[in-house]
């Protein structure tokens, strides 16, 4: 199989048109001694049926959330994905379209991305948003780089309750940019606002917090924003978009840049990617924002259309002076998120958020009743919380898996002082029955 559709006979007539005897002649510019002498050491190709069998056997070696009840979170969530999302966003036309540089041939994707940008503004409470970035972690890094273009400062304060993957990614980027990354300590699982006040100074470029934070806890956004702004620092919030169903949005608290992982908006888990980075910001960032931006344009009859705007920010025009190197980003994931948000709408997202809230609180309350288990932090949380236990966590989780439950994510990989803790995420998909089953297994463990 090679997905070509030119027959041997046709090849011959093409060669004749070109005026050569063989394809080999066309390859002449590649010097013989540089060539690969043998065939590639790869398996031979195969038919569709054989390929399916191979893929199915690999797929069968993975457990998936349909087989085992998923209470895992920490950056990826088993939210419900309405059937519409797959059906509409994965259509062949969207799937196989190119980047919409040729506007008139791309109105469908352009309009969808314009609507996506608007919906991201609507759920973050911000003025503008781009058409996507790689993922939540790189979006934070890009946000810091963007903040950097508005300030001479080099110091970035990051809440210790940011997702450690995000922090590590940020550090990877920051190292090349000689940015100084300092962390802000926590008080009972929440960014310590006093510590922040002490740490922030006029050398501070930006303060980065996550909402809800890595432990599921709702941060005191107003205090954080005020503290940062008082010192002249920009505020970057890494945001779970589902929270917009229930809580005041970061923009309403005055955040400067809101980024986040859009996976909860109808994107399957896919073992961690492709997910969706999004970035929203105040109007003033319009010419500094990385990635693509779609804007309204008119044709000569004044009909409404859409095209990419401010391309002069981008690498293919500005090259080394571009606002970012991002080229291909996550278009189709933005499409999925757009279909998801359009399908859920204001009231649907509210219901999702409320179900997450009530179910996670029910789970926390029930688990807290168990001997040897407690909820680690007392601060308000949304859909995820940390459990502390006197049991051996690897054994405990293995025992839950045997009962058909992926009970949570151990914290010790990232936090050595949390050897006895694991995080439980409860989405709207989890039923009372499933939560009760979890509680029962934990009790027995």
């Amino acid at each position, binding site marked *: 199989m090679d997905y070509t*559709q030119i027959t041997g006979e046709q090849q011959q007539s093409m060669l004749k048109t070109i005026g050569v005897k063989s394809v080999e002649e066309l390859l002449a510019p590649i010097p013989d001694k540089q060539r690969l002498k043998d065939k590639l050491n790869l398996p031979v190709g195969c038919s569709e049926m054989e390929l399916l069998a191979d893929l199915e056997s690999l797929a069968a070696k993975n457990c998936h959330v349909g087989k085992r009840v998923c209470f895992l979170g920490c950056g990826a969530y088993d939210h419900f994905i309405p059937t519409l999302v797959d059906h509409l966003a994965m259509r062949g036309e969207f799937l196989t379209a190119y980047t919409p540089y040729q506007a008139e041939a791309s109105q469908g994707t352009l309009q969808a991305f314009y609507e996506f940008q608007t919906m991201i503004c609507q759920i973050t409470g911000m003025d503008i948003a781009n058409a996507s970035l790689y993922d939540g972690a790189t979006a934070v890094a890009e946000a810091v780089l963007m903040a950097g273009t508005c300030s001479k400062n080099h110091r970035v304060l990051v809440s210790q309750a940011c997702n450690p993957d995000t922090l590590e990614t940020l550090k990877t980027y920051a190292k090349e940019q000689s940015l100084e990354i300092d962390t802000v300590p926590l008080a009972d699982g929440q960014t310590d606002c006093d510590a922040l006040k002490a740490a922030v100074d006029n050398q501070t470029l930006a303060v980065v917090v996550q909402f809800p934070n890595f432990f599921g806890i709702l941060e005191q956004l107003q205090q954080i924003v005020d503290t940062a702004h008082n010192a002249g620092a920009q505020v970057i919030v890494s945001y779970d978009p589902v929270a917009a169903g229930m809580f005041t949005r970061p923009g309403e608290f005055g955040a400067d840049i809101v980024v986040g992982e859009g996976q909860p908006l109808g994107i399957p888990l896919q073992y961690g990617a492709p997910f969706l980075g999004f970035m929203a910001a105040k109007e003033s960032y319009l010419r500094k924002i990385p990635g693509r931006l779609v804007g309204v344009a008119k044709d000569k009859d004044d009909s409404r259309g859409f095209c990419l705007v401010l391309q002069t920010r981008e690498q293919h025009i500005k090259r080394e002076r571009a606002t970012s190197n991002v080229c291909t980003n996550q278009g189709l994931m933005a499409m999925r998120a757009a279909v998801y948000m359009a399908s859920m709408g204001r009231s649907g997202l509210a219901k999702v958020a409320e179900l997450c809230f009530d179910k996670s609180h029910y789970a926390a309350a029930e688990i807290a009743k168990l001997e040897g288990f407690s909820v680690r932090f007392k601060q308000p949380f949304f859909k995820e919380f940390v459990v502390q236990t006197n049991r051996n966590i690897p054994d405990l989780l293995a025992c839950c898996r045997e009962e058909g439950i992926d009970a949570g994510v151990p914290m010790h990989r990232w936090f050595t002082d949390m050897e006895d803790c694991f995080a439980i995420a409860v989405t709207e998909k989890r039923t009372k029955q499933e939560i009760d089953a979890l509680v029962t297994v934990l009790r027995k463990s």
Partner: protein
Amino acid sequence: MAIDPSINESQELPLIFELSSPGNCAVSLPDSDVPETDRASCVPSDLLSGGGNNQLPEVGELDVVRHYTRLAHRVFSIDEHIYPLGSCTMKYNPRINERAAAMPGFMNVHPHQNIADVQGILELMYRTQRMLAEISGLADVTLQPAAGAHGEMTGLMMINAYHRDRGCKREVVLAPDSAHGTNPASCTICSMKSTKIRSRADGRVDLDDLRSKVDENTAALMITNPNTCGVFDDQIADIADIIHAAGALLYYDGANMNATMGIIRPGDVGVDVMHFNTHKTFSTPHGGGGPGAGPVGVCDKLRPYLPRPHVVRNDAGDFDLNYNIPKSIGKVRSFYGQVGIIVRAYAYLRALGRDGLRRASEQAVLNANYIAAKIKEHYPLPIPGPYAHEFITVPDFERMGITERDFAKRLIDHGIHPPTMSWPIMHCLMVEPTETESLRALDRFCQVMIKMTDEAQSNPDLLRNAPHNTVVGRLDDVAANRKPNVRWMANSPA
């Protein structure tokens, strides 16, 4: 025939927001089966006061289906159109790949699942790493980068780490003037300075200019081969020698890999690090602008700096994520790579296999040279062939009295996505048909191209006012950029 646009939705589609009626929702969600937790008692009031302020549109299920179906009918796609987009390799995206990616065992797996429960995915990733290593002739491959540009950045970070590790700080990255914009932009992300190397008239690197610019401050040379003019630079081994002699490394932009699979391996001719674009070479879809994937291959020297975690096979034959890479540049993203995309690339690699990849490259080369031969009497080819998988023509648009933009928009009328324009040479067209087009489609493309030279002569306004067959006429992007409207607002008509 003039249709009143106010009642003809097939002309101007409403925005999703214009379809909203408060109270509608396209998804029915279950009622809660747990007791309600009192919000006020556990959430600070300032967080609750704005609850529900998000203004997402409220649209019923049928209207959501219609909206996106209509949008889908307003976009070019490989599924309907030829995309002879040089350097972008818009080949057919096999449907079996989509079926693979949608298997629950790949699609619905959580990244924090226990390692024993994800052996199939890790095996697929490991096999893909090994296949890409074999194709590139390099020692190892990381699947983490999310796209080509991200791969460049990852590669440059490893180059930085390599030099730092050797106690030197090299800041300059050389790249031919025909390099893709992401190359210099990625340098900027890594605080490296990109310096242009002159190309010769035939698109090959000017070795003298290269020699004159290489020094102890050179971190690397970034090269695309075949280059963006569609020419294979046979000096690649010499270039590698020059670069290596200066203690620098050779970075290979794999965007044009489609010309050379199974024919030449970058690692065999001195390349130290390269990225692949799965969404070009390995048939994963473009998705209207991603997601793609930009795996990076490295030679042995750079292995210690690979991003973490790295997919490995341990002695027992099990697959694992190795976090223990002391000199790693760290993480460049969340989790482990664009798994859903890697599944598709894997499916493609397995389908084509040992011989198919080479056949694909050969056919891609044949197709490009065929088009060049058929249109050469009408379209000047500044660089003589044979070409790799793409070639450049620089039509005399000025003499034709039109701009390349006119030309591009008119091609759209003919159902053809315009080739890459004005890059790497001003006013050029870069044509890459790929191997998956039929002879009929290639012939039709040539026929349209030739016909357009006539159209330009006989009726240049046809081009100047193009496109005519699209849902909107030519858009005024100057006005659109003057005061950009990048989001809809209630009561301020877009």
